[in-house]
């Protein structure tokens, strides 16, 4: 999985590309934590538009980012979520706690 980050005026956007499973999760988690620590954003956007697959490993990453952004008193948005990943997030009830925006088909 590839991670691409961009920052503009206090907003950090992290885009995932490829498949997010347990194999990819460890390095993704440390990369995201590192980016948040360096940038200390007011708003974090996780862009899932180029994610072709995600399992519950993605939930752990999102929950971790949510906790970290709460500590920083910032906000978190999960954007452009493809159908499969959206189904995983709703099965876990994540969309009831965190703003999850479905991708437009």
């Amino acid at each position, binding site marked *: 999985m590839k991670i691409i980050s961009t920052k503009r005026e206090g907003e950090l956007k992290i885009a995932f590309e490829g498949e997010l*499973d*347990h194999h990819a999760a*460890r390095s993704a*988690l440390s990369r995201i934590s590192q980016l948040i620590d360096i940038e200390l954003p007011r708003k974090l956007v996780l862009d899932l538009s180029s994610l072709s*697959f995600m*399992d*519950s*490993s993605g939930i752990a990453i999102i929950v971790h980012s949510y906790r970290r952004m709460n500590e920083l008193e910032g906000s978190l948005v999960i954007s452009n979520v493809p159908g*499969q990943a959206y*189904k995983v997030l709703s099965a876990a009830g994540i969309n009831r706690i965190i703003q999850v925006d479905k991708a437009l088909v």
Partner: protein
Amino acid sequence: MNYNNEMNLSFISRSINESFARAAVSAFAAQLDPTLEELEDIKTAVSEAVTNCIVHAYPDRVDRIYIRARLFEDNTIEIVIRDKGVGISDIDKARAPMFTTGGGERSGMGFTIMESFMDSLKVKSKQGRGTTVIMRKRISMRYAGRIGA
């Protein structure tokens, strides 16, 4: 019930094989002519079960994971994922949402996702002997007449 086809797969518990396992099972399941969503459901459930074997069954060794998939006459796929690992002491607890012994990298939602993406889920386990997960999903019939089924 009779089955029309069967495949067996074994591989070692390295995390790089998670993507191989879900791709292999979904390629086999494609024979039932599932929708893209049904195929993604199967991939997701397989990914969760195989991850459990790697993270929990064999926490400090690399060992074998076995998958058997069968296609039944009523367009149901049965996927059996088995390990010879440490086993689960309390299955009800392990299946409960948010419960995990896997630390901050895991969400504790694996069994919940398997349950919601498949029609049925059965878990059998013996401590020190291993765990077997049996999942079934009925694939919707999209055509009145099927060719070559």
